[in-house]
């Protein structure tokens, strides 16, 4: 490999069906290939270090258009690898090694972590469940409570009473939403091998209305996937004012567990 190119890593897999990767192109349109080290297969593509070396990469990661295209290409390869392997640990965006030998070094060095992550992921799939709460339904606001004057006092007193009703309705809604979210997570986590709560999504980015009160990821046995979907349907119908959204299957980004400091609640 020439000095000016490096290897961009997508995922580390076990029992990878390489035929499924034929013709697959990754970041910057480069074809992907496999680097093996005793049972572990890293899926890599060559990248130009002028664009993907440490310094230019840092700059490029702040360019949202560049980032979107790169992230989509990365995710497409990770998804394909996930479908073509017994288990695959997805790597974070922008894992670049300077040459195939370095990739093998990485596999050897992180072997215990990678193997335990692969063991955890085998036969299991990551699903996402998001809960969106409708504040008004949760507060069950009675319009009469906020309608205004209760007899005595003038406009100022009426204003204060109205504000008080609004604020306490909001507090009630927040308490209900938090209680619902805890219950949801508890019930869903009981079906999962591992579960994580991610920070709620910014409505500006997700473009969805309502509070995102739960943004959970669940690693579920493939045999239990139907059970999870049924639980989401049931809980969605049971909890008033809360809308549930089941997404997946996802590459197991939340449970790869090879990043330092990644929090996980094994069950």
């Amino acid at each position, binding site marked *: 490999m020439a000095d000016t190119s490096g290897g961009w890593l997508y995922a580390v897999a076990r029992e990878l069906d390489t035929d499924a990767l034929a013709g697959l192109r990754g970041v910057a349109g480069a074809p992907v290939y496999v680097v093996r080290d005793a049972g572990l297969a890293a899926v890599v593509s060559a990248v130009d270090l002028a664009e993907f070396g440490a310094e230019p990469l840092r700059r490029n990661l702040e360019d*949202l258009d560049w980032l979107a295209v790169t992230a989509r290409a990365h995710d497409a390869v990770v998804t394909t690898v996930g479908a073509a392997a017994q288990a695959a640990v997805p790597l974070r965006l922008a894992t670049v090694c300077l040459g195939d030998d370095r990739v093998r070094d990485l596999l050897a060095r992180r072997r215990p972590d990678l193997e335990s992550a692969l063991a955890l992921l085998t036969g299991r799939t990551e699903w996402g469940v998001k809960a969106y709460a409708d504040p008004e339904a949760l507060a069950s606001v009675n319009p009469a409570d906020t309608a205004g004057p209760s007899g*005595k*006092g*003038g*406009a*100022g*007193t*009426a*204003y*204060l009473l109205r*504000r*008080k009703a*609004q*604020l306490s309705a*909001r507090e009630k809604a927040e308490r209900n939403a938090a209680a619902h979210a805890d219950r949801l997570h508890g019930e869903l986590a009981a079906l999962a091998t591992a579960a994580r709560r991610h*920070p709620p999504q*910014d409505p*500006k*980015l997700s*473009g969805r209305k309502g509070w995102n009160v739960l943004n959970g990821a669940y690693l579920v046995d493939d045999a239990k996937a139907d059970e999870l979907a049924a639980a989401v349907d049931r809980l969605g119908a049971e909890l008033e004012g809360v809308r549930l959204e089941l997404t997946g299957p996802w590459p197991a980004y939340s449970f790869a567990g090879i990043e330092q400091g990644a929090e996980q609640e094994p069950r």
Partner: protein
Amino acid sequence: MSENAHRNELQERIDADPETVEKGLVSLVLTIVELLRQLMERQALRRVEDGKLSDEQVERIGLTLMRLEERMGELRDHFGLEPEDLNIDLGPLGPLLAPE
């Protein structure tokens, strides 16, 4: 929201053209004023709940807060800001102001 609207919003956050900077400064100042207004309002509600204020005092506090809110609305309109523009994302601590 369409994908385009997202993009524009994101770009607005990081572009440093003079107009954006001015709008950013105005919304920062108004956010602080709004924070103070909400704190005062909550404090007033607490005092009213304590029941130690006379009806007349309650009415006066209510009127003052009501006018402050109206004035705030006028200022927002003047600068073309929506209520949700007046906030600061404090990252792990959440937003500075609870959404109304």
